[in-house]
Structures are given as structure tokens and as C-alpha cells.
């Protein structure tokens, strides 16, 4: 716990290496919780990303006042995105792999939440090339359950800009994922 607080503080102070070290730590923790959760739950149930991130927060940071927790969420959002996308890929592989249970599906990729998630991930990567800030806003919102105010705080921007970026990014992504 002390280690992670130190890293977050260092990341907040602009230490890029600390930010880099933070991600695997948060990632491991999140993956452990997610795995435990998956084991408890019925198969096929989706994970509540927000709840997982918050649980990880409690476990890693505790309930103390923590000024720089935005950096935690930035790392957690990225980690959560990877975990969910990995899970979706794995499921997809299991379904389509080996042709064991090959079923002719009508072409409705938009109905499959995993496919949608993978499409979002891909679109988000493209958006990041064009507007990195907008992509960060989406990541924090979709994968760490952050509201506009918290996003603004994490990214050091105004709430107004966070809203604007979200409006733009949402339209951009929806367009990218449907066209």
C-alpha cells in the first residue's frame, strides 16, 4: 500500500517512470480481483468494471484521503480496458476456435457485446491518434466509471472541457464503430 501511494505521488509529481511502474501493479491487482469474481459468478456474466476499479482502489489505497487518486484511476482505466479486451478476445477465440461448435451466425456483430467492445477498443486506439485527450476521457469514463468532474480532476482540465471532449468523442466513436 505504501509502495503504490509513493508511486502515485511520484506520478503526480511528473515522474514518468513511476507512472509506468504503477500500471502493472494496478493491472495485477485488478486481474486478481476480476479472476476471483469470475470464479464466483455464473459464466457469461459480464464484469462490472466500475465496481472492480473501486474495489481495487480500496485494496490498494484504502479509505484514506488521497489527493492524487486521479492518477490511480488513469492507470486503472487503462488496466481495466486491457483486461476487458483480453477477456473478450479470449471468449471470441474459444467460440470460434477449432470449429468445434461452428454455428452459422447471421451477420449481427453489433449485437454481441464482446464484438462491440473489441470494436470500441479499436476505434478508441484510432481516436487516440487523432485526439489523445478525447480518448483518455472515454477510457476514464467507460473503464473506470469516472464522472465528468472526476475526469476533469484526473486530467487537469475543466469540467466543461471534459464534457465537450466526451460529446465529441462519443459521436466520433459511434460513427467509427457503425460506418
Amino acid at each position: 500500500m505504501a509502495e503504490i501511494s509513493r508511486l502515485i505521488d511520484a506520478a503526480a509529481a511528473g515522474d514518468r517512470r513511476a507512472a509506468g511502474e504503477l500500471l502493472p501493479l494496478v493491472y495485477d491487482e485488478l486481474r486478481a480481483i476480476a479472476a476471483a469474481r469470475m470464479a464466483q459468478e455464473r459464466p457469461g456474466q459480464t464484469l462490472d468494471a466500475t465496481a472492480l476499479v473501486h474495489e481495487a482502489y480500496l485494496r490498494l489505497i484504502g479509505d484514506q484521503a488521497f489527493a492524487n487518486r486521479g492518477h490511480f484511476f488513469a492507470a486503472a482505466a487503462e488496466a481495466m480496458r486491457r483486461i476487458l479486451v483480453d477477456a473478450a478476445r479470449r471468449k471470441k477465440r474459444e467460440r470460434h476456435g477449432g470449429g468445434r461448435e461452428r454455428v452459422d451466425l447471421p451477420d449481427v456483430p453489433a449485437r454481441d457485446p464482446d464484438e462491440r467492445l473489441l470494436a470500441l477498443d479499436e476505434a478508441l486506439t484510432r481516436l487516440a491518434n487523432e485526439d489523445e485527450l478525447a480518448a483518455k476521457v472515454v477510457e476514464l469514463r467507460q473503464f473506470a466509471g469516472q464522472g465528468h468532474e472526476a475526469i476533469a480532476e484526473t486530467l487537469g482540465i475543466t469540467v466543461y472541457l471534459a464534457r465537450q471532449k466526451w460529446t465529441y468523442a462519443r459521436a466520433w466513436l459511434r460513427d467509427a464503430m457503425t460506418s
Partner: protein
Amino acid sequence: MSAKPNPAEAIFLAAADIADPAGRAALLDERCAGDAELRRRIELLLKAHDAPDSLLDQPVPTAEEMPTRAMPVEQSDSTQAYGRTVEDDEELDALAFLAPPGRPDSLGRIGQYDVLEVLGKGAFGIVFRAFDDKLQRVVAVKVLAPSLATTSPARKRFLREARSSAAIRHENVVQVHDVHEQPLPHLVMEFIPGETLQQRLDRTGPLDAAEVVRIGRQIAEGLAAAHATGLIHRDIKPSNILVDSGPAATVKITDFGLARAADDASLTRSGVVAGTPMYMAPEQAKGEALDHRADLFSLGSVMYVMATGRPPFRASSTFAVLKRVAEDAPRPMREIIPEVPEWLARIVEKLHAKDADERFQSAREVSDVLADCEAQLKASSKLMDYSRIPNSEIRRSARIGRKWKWVAVAVIAVVLVSVAAARLIPSVSRFIDNRAELAFDLSDPDFERAIVYSGEDVVADVDLRTPATIPLVPGSFKLEVRIRENRDLQEWQYNRYGLNHGSSAEPLLNSNTTYRLDVVRGERVVYTAKLKPPVPVVASDGWVSLFNGKDLNNWEQFPADGWKIENGLLVSNGISSSISCRKPLFGDGICRLEYKLVGKATGSFNLRSWKSKRGGAVFLGIGNKGEKTGDITTWDQQSGTRIIAQANADVHRGDEWQVAEAMLRGNEMIVKIDGVETARHTFADIPARGNVGLHATAGVKMYVRKLEIKELPAEEPGWSPLFNGKDLTGWKTHPEQPGGWTVENGVLVGRKPSGYLFSERGDYGDFHLRAEVKINAAGNSGLGFRSEYGFNFDIRQKGGNGFCPIGYETELAVKGAAGTTFPTGSVYRNPRVWDPKAGSVRPKSDEVKADQWITLEVIARGDRFTILVDGKTVVDFTDPTPIARAGHLNLQVLTPTTVVQFRKIEIKELPVATAQPVPDPEIVKALEAKLAAAETALAKAEARFRAAAAPKTEVLAHELAVIDVKIELADEQKRYADMVKLAEQAVTKHGDQRDMLAVLVKLGRIPSSDLNRADAAIADAKLRLAKAKKKLSEAKP
């Protein structure tokens, strides 16, 4: 990262804000000017913008749902009439109008209603959740505050308006079932589970247009129903709007007509907070005649706050708010939140017309327009038909009001400000052009300095003892407040975290802690603190007066007007009322009350109450259940007042001044009335410190002319007093050498003739003796120990055998006094056979002055003697040829000019060191086997966790099991330092476990009752830690 919008983004955002297609097209024509590719791109984005998306539109919880125990957001609107929290249940004491309860979970009865819970309190009174046992349903009961109830016009108006509001039957109005006049005016309403709109907004921030319209429409419909019966609400504001927690989230207006009753009272009685004027209509602010259209203006303000998160008319003082309501146009909503649609802004603008004739003319009209918007939004998620939306041609220019009417309003406003301002420190006072001003309340003298950081940079460093504001741009800052050093931090922390702060890891507040302060658009103050009254001055004799005869600033009372000051006396108003002194808290000491009871009823004198926890009380007067003056009583919710120790004499004297004294030491309480002890009791459980308070029942007049406390240092375990402050009990003079010993004002004084005072007990061996003593310049005295009480010495005889009692003596004399060779602290050896070389030991320093109280300590352990003066060791020697291993203590007067005084003599007998017990090898072996098994189980659980087959909680449970065995083993092997460390680990781990369970509870996976078990486990672990620490300290030499 680039924050600058690209051209496509900027045009898209501008276009997305325009709801009607024609307007959008016009904007695109203008901004894309011939760039067909750009325009196509933006049109695609707009199409995507307007379409719903199952993945992207998942509702995301806001960060406010995160555990933020250390960053509480207190509600700034303290006048909530229907708040869901009760911050201080001290007032329950004063709920004396309730009859005895009819069921076990009830606090008491009012009429046919069993009160189950206090839901909240506001300017008007208290709201209870209650059970109607006739109709077998849960209801809300609102009781008019006694202070208002005694004002005849307010009372009449309350009853009249409440009765007429009972006539409104509408889905959007809280149904009033019944109105009663006795014992206090109260109304019975339907109980709505849910929250107020204020609480909702505090929780979520601004609402989207659809929700603003949905709620606004329902308020308008409720108002329409009320206006149809001729009733005006007069106080429409977010805290008077309830949002049902049911799936339909129905909105209900409450408190019809109550504002009027409160107004009447506040105009005639100063100091009563009537509520916030932020939602008032201009005609109300100016004190002009008003009609139902005033409610429509307030509805406009409520819609404004819903859409933007901030009330439309805000200013630094109540007076300035009133002025803005009357004269200024609020800042356009779209400047604050650009997403607010134009049509919504126009509706609110029309409601906000200063001239009632320019507003919508009826609530029905408003509800129709909003219903139309609601239907359109449902159909196509935006507004297509603007035909019912008003034009934005309302004059924005300020209208000049009739200024002279302001004078009357201003007087009240000033009173309100002084009451309200004391509650917020610091507060973001206003937002101007995207900048906030942080203001600090200066009425709390305990704050000395505030430092604001942005990252590591100091943005401002302000001395809080002079007026100060700090301009801030929106963003996140750290605020550090330096508090005066001797402030009672525990109490302050209590106020910051509230009653329900049951954390296992309590964050400690200290003046160097940094708190986060968020300044965001839409005003949200994260940091608030309450004013604490100044610390009363301690008189030189140790008595602290709690009542200054002038004001009640340091007191909290319930109800508000229960007590007042008359001619320097504190007087109850003849209604059932409690009052308690905020500071200082009372722990070990004496509390003295000089009081007079007039009339037949009774009162009490309460000690060490601490918020919900009751201390002890001294009953005053003759009660109807056999209670009488001098009884020790206590109070709890189940049984109310209960006698726990009866007075042994009838000491009540009505209509006369009497003195009640309560002495508390640890858990023991001794009561004296007029100097005569009436009762004593040792409590099983009583707060260590708490407030001093008074309670008077209805019908009685209780006068208080003096209330003071004197703290006594907490008694340390193992010490027993050798001098009782009254007489020479426990001592005897020597028949041949008596000396002159008297007790004067609690002080034991020794004068001529020369002689000795011996302790009756003669078996003091190893001990720690402590005396507070004073000697005159010409005096020579001493403190003897391990002395023989015999007849073989003569004090007058100088030199030779028998100069002093056989044993040891430590000298007590100022250097240079007659007959003194050695100064205070020197130890004389007086062996049985006089030996001129018997020897004495001189202190390292001899700095004891005449006529000053000093603390002299003697520690005798085996043959080693340590003498301390004022805590400093002056002599420490081991006698190679010991004279005695045990004996009497004695006090000496050597020369006729001696005056020696003792005000405290106490002793702690030291245990004779015994051999350490040896661990039992059998038990150790068994425990080691148990430990191995637990460790194996833990390893298995960890493996399962790594394989994702077990939750983390299971691993934690095994870790705790291992620690438990390790503690047992450490205990058996007498490794107490290890035991303490392990017990500390266990406490931390149990805390972790609770945190995890809390998450599971939050997610609805386990019932919240599981947390109780976790709390119990934490308490258990703490207890074990305390035990381990005790063992460790006892084991240390």
C-alpha cells in the same frame, strides 16, 4: 495532449448544441462555407450524436459514490425541513412532550402515533417517522418547534394553513393526513421514502434537460393543485421537494404554508432562522403583497439550480441575495452549462420575470408547456416543436425596486447572516467569470493560518486572523489549515466526520494535515468545518465557570428558546428543555451548580454526556416517579430517566438557592447537595469525558446563578491517597514528640512544637511516595520512611543516639535555613546504633525555593532509594548496609520556626519482583502443531486464490487464523513484544477485511449485517492488543 478543438470538433460541438434542424443547417452553411468534405464529416458526427448507443450510453456512476470518508461533503443548506440525518440526538432528551412509547422500537408517543425515528429537523420543528397504530401504517409527523408554537399568530397560522393543505389531494403533493394541536401543534403526513431534491443535487450535480423537465413538470402540477384551492406555498426550494425512491421517482412538494408561519415568528422574535431567501420571488424579497405567481418564480429558481447546479441568486450575504433577487437577472444558464438547451433557458427566463405579469400566469400553464417538452423529448430525444416555448424577450434590465422597504428586511438579514456564517469555514463565496473567491469565516479564533496549494506550489498563504479572500480558478487545490495548538482536536474531528463515523482506521486531524479543496464550476464545497466556541478562562484556583451571566454562545439548547438569560441568571422558560455547554468537556473533577427551582416540576444536572451517549445526572426537585433531589439518575432510549442511586436524605428546598455538587473520578460519581453527601455510584459504563448540561421539565422555572467545574487529574491506578484533605485519618502523632499538626483549607500544616506525625501503617516496604509540599524559609522538616515508631529517640537532643526515628529520612528544607546542613532531597540514614559516619547523600542540585509548592517523590525498591524533586531525580543511591526493609512513614517538624505544608500525599506500593513464569512445553508443542496446520491451510487458500478459485476474503480469513495462533504462542512463550506486534497486525487485517466486506455490501453481494460481525472482530482484536500491551508493560522491570 492537445486540448484545442480541431475545426471539425468546434463546429460539431456548436451544432450539437442547437436543437432545431433549421438552426443547425444555418450554422453549418456559415461555418463550413463550401468545404463539402468537412460538412459531410460533421453531419456524420451529428447523426452519431443524436443516435443512442448501447455501449457508450451505459450509465456510469459518478466518482461521488467512491468511499470518501476522509473528505466529507457537508450540506450547506442547514435549514432543510426534511433532511434525512440527525446530527445530534442530544435533542432527544428534550422530546419530553412525547408520551411513553407503545412499542419497543418507539421513542415515545404523540397522539395515536408511535415515534420510530427522527428524520430531520428544520426551522419549523422536527420530523419523525412514526407508526399510526389505528390505521396501521407508517407516517411522517412534523411537530412545530415549541419556540414557534408559543407564538400565538404563528401557531394559529400553522394550524390554519396545515388544515387547508390537508385539502390538497394530488400525486405531487405530500398528503397531509391530519393536523393536531396538542401537546404541540403537529401534522401527520404520508411518509415518502427517498431524498430531498437538495440531497439529490448534492449527490449528483446538475441534471440533464429531460430530468429537469420531468421534475419541473411534476412540481408545477403539484402547485397547480394547491393554487386551485387558493393556497400559496411561499417557500418552494430544493429541500422542500421530495423525490420518491420508488421506480417512478415521483416528485412531491412538502411544507405547504409553513413558510408563512415561520416568517411570522421570525419577524417578532429575533434569531430564528427562517430559511434561505435564495429561491424567493422579488415581491417576497421586497416585502410586497404576493400571489400564487411567487411560487412560479421560485419554481424557475429550482429549475435553474437543477440544470446548472447552482442557485440563480447568490451573494455573500443574505441581504445581498435579497437585493439580487429583486434587481438582478441571473447569469444565463448556458454560460454556466453550455449543454442546457436554449428552449429550457427561455422557459426559466420567463418564470424569472421580475414583474409577475410577465411570467407564466398559472402553474397549469407551466405544467402544460413542460409536459409538451417531456413528450417531445421522449419521442425524439430533442425538441422539434418550439411553438409553446416563450420568446426570449424578457427585459433583462434591472428594475428599480422601492428601496425603502428594504430596511425592515435588512435587519432580519443581518441576524440570519451572523447565525449562518458561523457554520462555514471556509467557503467558496462566489463565482465570477470562471473565478471563485474563497472566503474564510473569521469568527473562529482557533484558526490561525490557511495555505492553499496547487500541486506543490503555494497559491496563497493567508493569516486567518484578519479578513481574507483568495481568488481561485476552477481546479483542484489542497487546503491546509493551521489550528491553534491547544484546540480540542477530538471534538473538532467529531464534527467533521459526523455521528456515523464508525471507521476502524480513524483519520486523525491535526493542524499540519492537508485537506483537499475542490473548486469546480457549479459550486461544490468539499471542505467545511464548524465553529467552535472559545475556551473559557481557567481561574487561578482551578475553577472554570461555564456560565458567564451574559450570553449563551457557548451553549447549545433544544428547543431553541428553552433557556434565556435574565438579570445575569440562566432561566428555563417553563417548557421542557435541555441546554448543554459545548466546552470545556468534563472528565474527572467537581462540577458545582447553584440553582433554584420554582414551581412543582423537576430538573436535572447532567454530567459527561457525549453526543448520543448519556453520562450520569443529578436529579433536582421531587419527581412523580419518586425521584428526588440528590438522586443519581441516568437516561436511555428504552427506559427514559432511571434512578440508579437514591438520595439518602430529603434535601429539596423549593424556591431557595441550593448547591448541587457532583464529583466524578473514573467511573465513580459522588453527589452532594448543600455540602451533604446524598448518593454515590460506580457506573459500569460512562463516557470518560462529556458535556455538562441542564434539563428542566415543563411547568418549572429553574434559575441558575453559577455553574462551574474543576478538573482533577485522572487517578492513576495503584495510587492511594494518604491524606484525605479533611483530617488526620490514617496518621498518629508521637505521644512524646507530638508536633503541631492541623488541617487548614484542605492542607496539612505542621508547626511547632517539634515532633512527628507517623503513618498508622508500619509495613511500607517497596513503594513510590509522592507529596506536594511547601516549606518556609526558616523551616526544617523531613519525610521519613521505613521508620520505627518507638520511644528511643528525642528530637530535642542534638547528636548522639536517638536524634531521629530509626530508618531513613529525606530532608525538606531550603538551603541555608537554621539547623540545616543539607538541602531538600538529601537522604539521611538513621541506624539503630548511632554512627557519626552513618552517612547521608546530598542531592546533585539544591535549587528549592521557600514558600513554593514542590513535588517530592521517594521511590524505595529493595535497598535502592530514588528521590525526585519536581520530577527530576536528585538522589539515587543503594544502601550497602540497609537499615530497614519496611516501616512507617513520618512527617517531621524539626525547628520551632518551621511551617511545613502538605496538600497531597499519595503512595503506590510496588510489587515485589517475582520470578518469571516458565512456558509450559506441552502447551507450546500443541500450539506449534496448530500453527503448522493453520499455515498449511493458508498456503492452500493462497494457491486457490492465485488460481482464481477463492476470493481474497478467504485468504484474509486464513491469514487471520494464523496470526491468532501466533499470538497464543507468543503469549505462552512470554514474548510479549512479539505478541503486541502480532496483535497490531491482526487489528490492521481485520480492518482490511471490513473494507472488503464493505465493498461486497455496496455491491449487494452480502447483507450489511455482515459488517457488524466485522466490526465486532475489529473491537475484539483491539481488546486483545490492549491486553498484550498491558502484559508487555507489566513484564518490563
